[in-house]
Each structure stands twice: as structure tokens, then as C-alpha cells.
């Protein structure tokens, strides 16, 4: 695999930082890749814009920030406006179905996926905090950028013991989400 | 109750053991501030006419009678800012007084 870039954008509190971190960590520690995780955030601790970037390569990653993401994950309307224009032609676009309004999928998008991660977190898992892990499961499934086993290992190692089971279920919810069902 | 005789004996013993001191000085350290002279409770020190190598007048003992003597109270060595003056106890008995 040559250089691959992933961008996850949303607002503070959605957990986009942790989502990027678990992904990059899995790639780096368990998949034998070179992976860099970077983050962007506003001054506000909650509610401001927030984004994480993952750059993957077989060799040493030089420039560590996504320039033209191959995989774009958008979890807010603000992030959509900021980041969508940066996407690489033919890339994979993933959106939070209820939070991102997209009149028309740009023609340059190679593959499109959507998931109501927030609603699933609230209705299936009764805890909004795992929205990001649902998204991580979904990203793993639809992009195949990381194996299920390795990304799950990364998630479960990164969350506190007492919420491990919840995160496990959240991950499975995202991983097994059937886009066609709705 | 303490008898008069006992009282007398005690007073005599006390007189016999009033401490007496010898006064020493590391003269080149003296800056002639005069604190030892001013604060000596028995006023046994005066400024001398001599000057040390820094040009200060170190203290000397009062010589002219009637004068009190050093009682080794050690206040001069505590009030001296220059680690110059100090006292050492001298043992005396009544007959020497």
C-alpha cells in the first residue's frame, strides 16, 4: 500500500480524535504499517470543530498530515464544508447520516457510505458516548483499511475496563450495520 | 520555710559563682560599629584610640575605676555583626574580688 490518507471531521465531543487514534494505532502497532495520527481542534474543549488525520504508508511517512484524503469521514455539517473539497478523486466518502446534509454526492467520489451513528448510539446502546466507536466499526467494515481483529484490539485496549463491553457492542453495531436495510 | 541563715548562705554561694568573663577580639574583623559597646549591660567596653588595618577603632575594656567587670553574658558576641568579639568564662572565687 502506498500513501493512504484518512480524515475524520466533526465537532468536539463526538470523539473524532479517539476514532482516528484507535485506527492509526491499530495500523501502526498491529498491521505493520507506518501510521501517523494528527489532530486539529478549536480552542473550545466542547462543541468546537474537531478533526483527526491518519496517514498510512509502507515506508516512513514524511509529511504527516492528510493533503487529499483517500478516505473522508464527515460527522458534522461544518466538517463537510471544510473538508469535502479536499477529497481525492475516486476516494471513499463516509458520512454521519443524520448530521450531514448532502444535496448531491459529488461525482468525484468513488464510493459513498452513510450511517446514523449517533442515533444507533442512543437507541441501540443507550449511550451517545460510543458514537465514535460505532463509526470506527463502520469504517473498518466498508473500507477494509484495517482488519477487524486488529482494530477491535486497539479499541478495547484504549478504553477503560469498565466500558470495554459497551465499546465492544458499539464496534459490532457499526461493523454489522446494514446500509441497505433502511 | 527558708531560714535567715540559709538565705545568707545561699547569697554567699551565689556571689562566689557570679561568672566572670575574658573578652577576646579578632581585631582585623572589627568594623568599629560600636554595637558591642552600646549594648554591653555592664558597660565594660569603650572605643579605643587604636585603628585596625581597615581603619576602624576596635573596642577595648574600660580601665578607669570604678568600673564593673565582664560577667560573661555573651551579648557582645551575639550583637557583633562581624564575628570579631567574644567572651570566655573565667572562674573566680570571692577572695579574688
Amino acid at each position: 500500500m502506498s500513501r493512504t490518507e484518512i480524515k475524520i471531521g466533526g465537532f468536539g465531543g463526538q470523539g473524532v480524535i479517539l476514532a482516528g487514534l484507535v485506527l492509526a494505532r491499530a495500523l501502526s502497532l498491529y498491521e505493520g504499517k507506518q501510521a501517523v495520527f494528527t489532530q486539529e481542534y478549536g480552542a473550545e474543549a466542547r462543541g468546537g470543530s474537531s478533526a483527526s488525520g491518519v496517514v498510512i504508508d509502507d515506508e516512513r511517512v514524511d509529511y504527516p498530515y492528510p493533503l487529499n484524503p483517500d478516505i473522508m469521514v464527515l460527522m458534522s455539517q461544518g466538517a463537510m464544508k471544510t473538508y469535502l473539497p479536499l477529497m481525492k478523486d475516486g476516494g471513499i466518502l463516509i458520512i454521519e447520516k443524520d448530521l450531514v446534509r448532502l444535496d448531491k454526492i459529488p461525482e468525484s467520489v468513488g464510493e459513498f457510505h452513510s450511517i446514523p451513528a449517533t442515533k444507533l448510539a442512543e437507541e441501540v446502546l443507550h449511550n451517545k458516548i460510543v458514537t465514535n466507536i460505532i463509526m470506527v466499526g463502520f469504517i473498518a467494515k466498508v473500507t477494509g483499511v484495517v482488519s477487524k481483529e486488529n482494530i477491535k484490539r486497539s479499541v478495547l485496549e484504549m478504553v477503560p475496563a469498565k466500558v470495554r463491553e459497551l465499546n465492544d457492542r458499539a464496534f459490532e453495531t457499526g461493523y454489522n450495520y446494514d446500509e441497505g436495510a433502511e | 520555710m527558708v531560714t535567715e541563715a540559709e538565705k545568707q548562705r545561699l547569697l554567699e554561694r551565689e556571689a562566689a559563682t557570679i561568672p566572670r568573663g575574658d573578652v577576646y577580639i579578632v581585631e582585623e574583623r572589627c568594623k568599629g560599629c560600636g554595637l558591642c559597646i552600646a549594648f554591653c549591660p555592664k558597660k565594660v567596653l569603650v572605643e579605643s584610640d587604636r585603628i585596625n588595618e581597615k581603619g576602624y577603632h576596635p573596642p577595648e575594656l574600660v580601665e578607669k575605676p570604678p568600673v564593673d567587670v565582664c560577667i560573661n553574658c555573651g551579648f557582645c558576641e551575639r550583637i557583633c555583626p562581624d564575628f570579631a568579639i567574644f567572651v570566655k568564662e573565667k572562674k573566680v572565687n570571692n577572695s579574688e574580688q
Partner: protein
Amino acid sequence: MSSKDIAADEFLSGDAAAAEGAIAVGCRFFAGYPITPSSEVAERMARRLPEVGGIFIQMEDELSSIAAILGGSWAGKKSMTATSGPGFSLMMENYGLGIMTETPTVIVNVQRGGPSTGLPTLLGQGEFMQARFGTHGSLEAIALSPESPQECFDFAIRAFNLAERFRTPVILLMDESVGHLFEKVRIPPQRNIEAVSRKLPEEVPYPPFRADEDLVPPMPPLGDGHHIHVTGLTHDDEGRPEMTPKMQEELMGRLVNKIRLYKDEIMDIEEDGIDDADIVVVAYGITARSARRAVTLAREKGIKAGLFRLKTVWPFPTERLRELAEQGKKFVVAEVNTGQALIMVEQATRKDAVFVGKYGGEPHKPFEILNGIEEALHADN
């Protein structure tokens, strides 16, 4: 077998990696004051130091943080503080005390945009010159500039080793981007970590500033009857203040030369594709990663460009750059400030360089440096 006996891979930020490197080399005393973007160093130390028998103190400000680590170092502990721009400015006076009193210690500065409060959460590289000339008076500085969490770990170790070897404060000059990005860090088994410790005197009492032939004095420990006197005043080898031009010459001469004479041992430069290069890109820290990409892009376009990366920014590789200039190479300097390494490069090469600067906030996009390379290619000099 304990985890210390085998190499371990961890996915760490540059800040966390710097803390782990310090712990690995034996740092057991940290005093600091929170400031973005260096706070993660302190946070990591706060959690980790007690686990390894070390002391962490959050001080009331940066003035006291550096004073405390100087005290900690004299008390025999390998000591460190970490800060960012404004805090680094506040530390400058006692950085000078550390130089003057030959106190081994490590100061981490995770640079952000400035001056003043500037861009607390965003990148800057504005302390290149401050790391060298920030405190008053004459001195030689040692400053290391990592480009990745792995290097934050490795350079923290090296910073301590240089500090202990030369009895001087060493600056680990990071930047926000390197401090905040996460990458795999290979932590070697403890036995593979080279840890240098200060020379100790063999006699008691030993004068605290009486140097050996290498110009570095053994450092007497406290509490052993050395009765050392340590002062920021110009002093003789016993530490006695002696404020004369003659003593100043003697003392400064030794303090400066103990670094200058070992410049080659200290300097660490990465030269990538320099030999056949027409254009040499000089960069450090995060900017070097943009520059590396730019050099690759230039090579793809048939331009012979190479990367000259300052892993140690101080001492500065003046002689080597002059040699490259004499071979006819042209220079591009990229950094996130208004031209600081630029001054040193132009002075070394005795010619104008193409400057690709940014005022701060974000690292260079590779194409920005590529443009600089193309500009240099077409320049006359």
C-alpha cells in the same frame, strides 16, 4: 522477564515520547508549569515518575520550575522541565544560571506560534535563535530538534547524555506539530539504553568548578562534605565570586570551549540526497518532514534536490554548509518563523538562500517548499 527487558512498541505523541525517553535515561525529577502545547509532557511525567521512584512537582510558574530543576540536579537527580514559548521566555534567566553554574539539566520547549500568547495550540518555530541567544551574556548552547515521536524519545535520551557529559543545560527544541502527532515509538530494552552520568570527584572536598583536561569539572554531590559554593557571579574554580575581567575571560573561555571543542561530537545532521544535489533544503523539526516530501517531489520532476536536516540545531554546522556552498550548491531554508536559521545558513554559505518561511499556525505544505526549490534552481547565485 519484566517489560523493561524486551523492546516494546508504543503509539505515542511526541510529548509523551519525550517524557518516556527522559524516564528511560534516568530522569527522576521533573518540575514544570502547564502550558500548551507542552502540557502532555508534564502530565505523562506526573503519572509515570512516581511509578519509577521519581519526583514530579507542578510549580507555581516557569521561573520556579527551572529553579527547582537546577536544585534537583545539584541534589543528584537527572532533572527536566518542559514548557512552550512564553514559559521558555520566563526560563531564560535561570537557563543562564544553569550555564554559569554548569548544572546538567534538560529543558523541553514545545514551540508554538508567537510572539506573546500568539497561537497557543498551533505551530511555531520561533525560538531557534532564542535557544541560542535567549539568555543574556556569552555562552554556547546545545539544542536538539526532533521530527517524530521516535526522535523525541531518542533525543530526550541524548539531551540528558549531553547535559551530563558537558555539565550544561540542554534544550530539546520541539514544536507543536511534532509534540502532538502520534506515531509508533520503539522503546528499547532498558539494558540497551546508553545512559551517561556526570563525572563525580574522587577527592573530598573537591572544588565544584575545577575542570579536567576536557574542560568539564567533576560535579561534587551535596551532603558529602564538599562544602561547595555555587554562584551565578563570575567565580573561580572553588566557586568564590571573583568579579574581574581576568576571571571572566578565564571562566567564559572554558564554558564556551567545553562545547566548541566537542562540536563535532555533539552535532548530528541528516544529509539525504545531498551529494549530487544542486539544491540543498535546510530544515528542522516538523518542517523537515514537509521538506523531505518536497525533495521527493522535486526529484520526481528531475530536479536534483537534497535535504539537510538539523537534528541538532545548536551547535550549528557552519563548516559543513560552507563546504557544500563551495561545491556550488544553492540553498533553500524552510522554517516556521521569519528567517532565523536563514541568518545562520547565509552566514555559513556566504550567499543568499531562498527563504520559505511561514509566520506560524501550520506546517509548510510540501508544494510550498517545492516552489522554493524551483525558485532556487532558477536563481542566479
